[in-house]
């Protein structure tokens, strides 16, 4: 009876799919739907107020064309790349790796102390971490008080060096994640391989560069992908610390999208910027996926 076998197979398949239905449903509702809505809105002149709020018009690619002539958009795209490059790819990634390697050599007490200190910043909710960073860098903040004890009169960091402060704050906040990923990855490196290298006379840094790093390449790519996407989306930290200022000197794309959509009520343009941000995320994502694939071959 091939028919009943087929029916049973279909039923079986359906039953197997059943457990994932709720998660697909939730993903579609809370993730795909807003993205699709936002992408659709980026081709209209949707607004918070005025005639366009009542009857949004289809304007084609006008919003995207406007970016080309906008003085702030290129600056903002560049600042986003700088922010991601400096705070995630260099800062969090390298510092996380360095701490993980050093922890592998240090003793238990030292490890738990460093581990706790680093993870503490990561455990904080973003808004709390942002206020902490603001309190640290602001004019009368912790940093300037400490400098004052040594007789140094510190600058108003958030105003004088806005990009540097938000980059440092994001490194502080995000390094724990990379550290945890690399700690796990390093513990998977087979002992006999590095011991063999040691026997062959490889120095510490040589073992790291030629043995350890190639082995954990997969973890590096995964980690880079996750922290890049996370950092691209950072908003609260920047908004609380500098609000994108002064004079747009720290306006990354998420901040710009928020300003356009909600401060100026131009939802069409705001969502267009957000769509570009998604696109940048996809490009980074695709690059890392290639890196991962290259490793498997």
């Amino acid at each position: 009876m091939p028919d009943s076998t087929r029916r049973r197979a279909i039923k079986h398949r359906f039953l197997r799919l059943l457990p994932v239905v709720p998660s697909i449903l939730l993903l579609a509702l809370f993730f795909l739907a807003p993205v699709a809505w936002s992408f659709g809105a980026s081709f209209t002149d949707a607004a918070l107020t005025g005639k366009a709020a009542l009857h949004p018009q289809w304007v084609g690619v006008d919003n995207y064309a406007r970016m080309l002539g906008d003085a702030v958009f290129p600056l903002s795209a560049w600042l986003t790349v700088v922010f991601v490059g400096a705070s995630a790819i260099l800062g969090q990634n390298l510092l996380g790796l360095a701490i993980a390697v050093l922890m592998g050599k240090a003793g238990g007490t030292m490890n738990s102390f460093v581990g706790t200190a680093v993870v503490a910043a990561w455990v904080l909710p973003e808004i709390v971490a942002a206020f902490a960073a603001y309190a640290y860098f602001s004019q009368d903040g912790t940093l300037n008080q400490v400098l004052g004890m040594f007789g140094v009169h510190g600058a108003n960091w958030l105003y004088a060096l806005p990009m540097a402060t938000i980059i440092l704050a994001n490194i502080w906040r995000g390094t724990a994640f990379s550290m945890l990923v690399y700690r796990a990855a390093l513990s998977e490196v087979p002992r006999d391989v590095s011991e063999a290298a040691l026997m062959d006379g490889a120095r510490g840094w040589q073992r790291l560069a030629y043995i350890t790093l190639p082995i954990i390449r997969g973890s590096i790519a995964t980690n880079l992908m996750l922290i890049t996407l996370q950092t691209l989306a950072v908003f609260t930290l920047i908004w609380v610390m500098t609000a994108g200022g002064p004079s747009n000197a720290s306006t990354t794309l998420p901040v710009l999208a928020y300003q356009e959509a909600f401060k100026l009520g131009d939802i069409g343009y705001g969502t267009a910027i957000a769509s570009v941000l998604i696109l940048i995320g996809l490009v980074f994502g695709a690059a890392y996926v290639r890196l991962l694939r290259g490793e498997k071959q």
Partner: protein
Amino acid sequence: MRRRARMGAALFGVLALLASAACSSQPQTNEKQTIKVVYQKTDSFTALDKVFKDAKQEFEAANAGVTVDLQPIQANDDDYGTKLALAQRSPDTAPDVFYEDTFKVRSDVDAGYLLKLDDKLATWSDWSTFNEGAKAAGRGDDGGIYAVPLGTDTRAIWYNKTVLQKAGIPVPWQPKTWDDILSAARKMKAADPSLVPFNMYAGKATGEGTVMQGFYELLYGTGNSLYSESDKKWVLGSKGFIDSLQFLKTLYDEKLAVDPADALDSNVWKKVFGEWLPQGKMGATVEGSYAPSFWQKGGAYEWPGYAQDMGVAMFPTQFGQDPGGVSMSGGWTLAVGAKSKNADLAFKFLTTALSKKNALAFDVDNSQIAVRTDVASDPGYQAANPFVKDVSNLVDVTHFRPATADYPSISLAVQEATEAVITGKRSPAEAAADYDASVRKLVGDAKVIQK
């Protein structure tokens, strides 16, 4: 491939499920009627909250079975406007009665958020006590009235008499030209270099405060304006615009105003009201007629000595040309939501909240300039603070913002120009050229006029 098809089928099933779920939600039928009221409340602005709480009690007692649901939004002016607009996008979240800034009335009428009140106002006898100028604040482009004003305000120079006297400047002080302001400020700086002699807001952080209590007092005193009401076009390339930026540059470069870093902190006004003026660390600032509401008893920064120590002066025109002074007016209104299911009841609540008793309480608590003639002549209003008469007289020289839908983005372009100048990024002429370029981009060449 088959696997993908299966996933697609599953996804489609999910979406179909969602769609059917969305369709099956039924409108709620409620025996009890509820009026949803949305308004702003901050740690330093509780006057309206008090009025609405009183009005709620009064209204619920008079109308059995009606619940007034007060939903204060804790946010600054900018964020309040955003949250209100977001709530109005859906009938489920749109309020029945809400607090609305006068300069947003017209664009929100265009957006279909406000209910036309003409028929209802005709039946409300108190409407005739509102003065004509104030009634215009709630008028839409079609001539209908969409919002009822709570009060209005003006802007003036608030100065600390003791600080001026220490620098040898006689009080009462009334500068006649911009140069008078600069020379007085330089005298104060010379007498005490740690002082902030004369502050005007600038930069994007203070939002509308930058233009209302700063740039427009300058611009409208040069003979130029932001918008030509007769041509319905934005004015570009005016000398007044550059001169105004130059004045700000002088103030900030000579350290007569606050440090640029402080100016770009959105909380700077709290320091002006709460610390610098009361502690005698600031000579003068340009602020609204509502300034006493912060210092009077129950205010956010109580300061018993303000009535003796503070003085108020009209902001002068550039060279003292007619009419000799400049002020800016805004103010807030109450409106009924266009999507309200209980519009009649909502309007009835609005009239309760704006009754003589409640309007008087609000105008006194929040140091507003009364718009009801019966409130204006009330002795309790006139005695509210020593400055009521001075700031009310400024109505003669006051200006209103162009209440067009694109105004908020133009205002931001002005704020950006001031920020670029006080931080030294652009010269006044360059910043003015940037402004012209962004306005052209925002509204198009057809809606600008070169002066």
